[in-house]
């Protein structure tokens, strides 16, 4: 997809955040650095900074989500923005209103940012393309395509716990085919220069030609996790069980579930990650999910800081592009 030009303003700054694919290493690093500074805000007595005071953020969720929506809401509120949550499945489109008409209505309410989750791949891009100028769009997960803020919070977690990407082997385990998280993670790891990306999955849950993204495919988990620094488990969606892609939950757990025995094959200081919500006993053994090498809850915590960084950078990028179109009337200071 032609995302890069859509996502950046003429100064090369972020103005929408739709996909990590096509963004530069410098920009991703800037997001991670900015997020690091926002982590201290959560430790203040007043957990708020006035950066986006007076701006209105609309959470447009066409697909159910609790955690992602909550962390976006919290991130916006910690930036002092006003937040409206729209649960579209129970709202207008179910009355037959088109996406375009709904957009125009929200714009008429002077919204400054849309955070969009949609079951169709490309919906946030569509909105970004047709939204009025000065409104930023952030992708909170679209279809099987991308979940870029999740990927960035995963990168923040890896960097904080493991340091430079150049020396790291990262394994992503589970249902790669239906996972927008995995796709965004692969792109982000590639851009940030990870040493090795391994995908561990049964053939039936692997999209064709995925190796072309620069990853190595493993079908045997024991080979796949050997000596890795990071193990990222993906959620196995229960509805996949009804399809013919998997024999049974138990067999999936035996082959691809992360157990203490399989974890022993990874590096002794390897960290365990999971985008949540976790299915204990399906993709991950309960003891492993709760052990001290598991950083699953740290991911949630960094997720707020990463989303604060992305939202404020996109808002700044929007302001800058509207300024430069009326600029050259004399610089500030």
């Amino acid at each position, binding site marked *: 997809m032609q995302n890069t030009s859509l996502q950046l303003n003429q100064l090369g700054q972020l103005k929408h955040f739709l996909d990590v694919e096509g963004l530069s290493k410098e920009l991703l690093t*800037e997001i991670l650095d900015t997020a690091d500074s926002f982590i*201290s805000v959560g430790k203040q007595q007043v957990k708020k*900074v006035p950066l986006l005071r007076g701006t209105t953020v609309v959470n447009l969720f066409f697909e159910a989500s609790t955690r992602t929506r909550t962390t976006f809401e919290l991130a916006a509120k910690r930036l002092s923005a006003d937040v409206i949550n729209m649960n579209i499945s129970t709202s207008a489109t179910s009355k037959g209103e088109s996406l375009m008409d709904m957009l125009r209505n929200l714009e008429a309410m002077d919204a400054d940012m849309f955070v969009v989750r949609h079951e169709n791949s490309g919906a946030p891009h569509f909105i970004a393309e047709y939204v009025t100028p000065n409104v930023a769009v952030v992708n909170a997960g679209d279809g099987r395509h991308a979940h870029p803020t999740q990927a960035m919070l995963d990168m923040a977690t890896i960097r904080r716990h493991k340091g430079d990407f150049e020396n790291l082997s990262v394994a992503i385990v589970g249902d790669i085919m239906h996972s927008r998280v995995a796709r965004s993670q692969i792109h982000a790891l590639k851009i940030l220069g990870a040493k090795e990306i391994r995908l561990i999955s049964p053939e039936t849950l692997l999209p064709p030609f995925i190796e072309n993204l620069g990853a190595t495919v493993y079908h045997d988990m024991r080979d796949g996790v050997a000596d890795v620094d990071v193990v990222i488990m993906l959620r196995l969606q229960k509805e996949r069980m009804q399809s013919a892609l998997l024999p049974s939950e138990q067999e999936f757990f035996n082959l691809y579930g992360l157990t203490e025995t399989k974890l022993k094959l990874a590096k002794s200081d390897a960290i365990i990650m999971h985008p949540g919500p976790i299915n204990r006993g399906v993709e991950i053994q309960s003891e492993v999910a709760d052990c001290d090498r598991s950083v699953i809850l740290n991911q949630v915590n960094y997720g707020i800081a990463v989303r604060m960084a992305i939202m404020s950078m996109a808002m700044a990028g929007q302001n800058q592009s509207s300024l430069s179109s009326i600029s050259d009337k004399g610089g500030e200071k």
Partner: protein
Amino acid sequence: MGDANKMKLPDLDVVLKQMVLNLKEYLQDKSIDDPAMVGIHTGGVWLAEKLHSQLTLGDPLGELDITFYRDDFTRTGLHPSVKPSELPFSVEDRHIILVDDVIMSGRTIRAALNELFDYGRPASVTLVALFDLNARELPIGADIVGQALALKEGERVKLTGPNPLAVELIHYSLS
């Protein structure tokens, strides 16, 4: 203020020594004991490190990055090199010495005070600045000033550091 024609930049060692004396006297007058010091990134932290080492304070130096509290975000965007703020002590009920290199419009100090109060309610805040450029846009004043400088149009001072700490006069062209 005094020198009419070519401005001479002051000797930092001399200025710093005087600032330490003035600050000690000021704290004594106000009967402030056991204050905590906070520097504002980046120049203010460098200056605060020097003052902190000569005042024998109980707590380590705190650092503030006021980027998220600036009032010109919509005009200038985020500064690309934001550093995390770090206050290794509780601000609640403490006497705080806030340190910056230059006080000009007062907007930086306004932002720093806002951020400081988001960490707690200090007992008092004493403001220390190396240079006062007398160009205030807000009702904010420093309690201890190293030296007042009268800059001409197109002149700025820049602190370089941290070791050695030095000042330079920069000429920039308008328009």
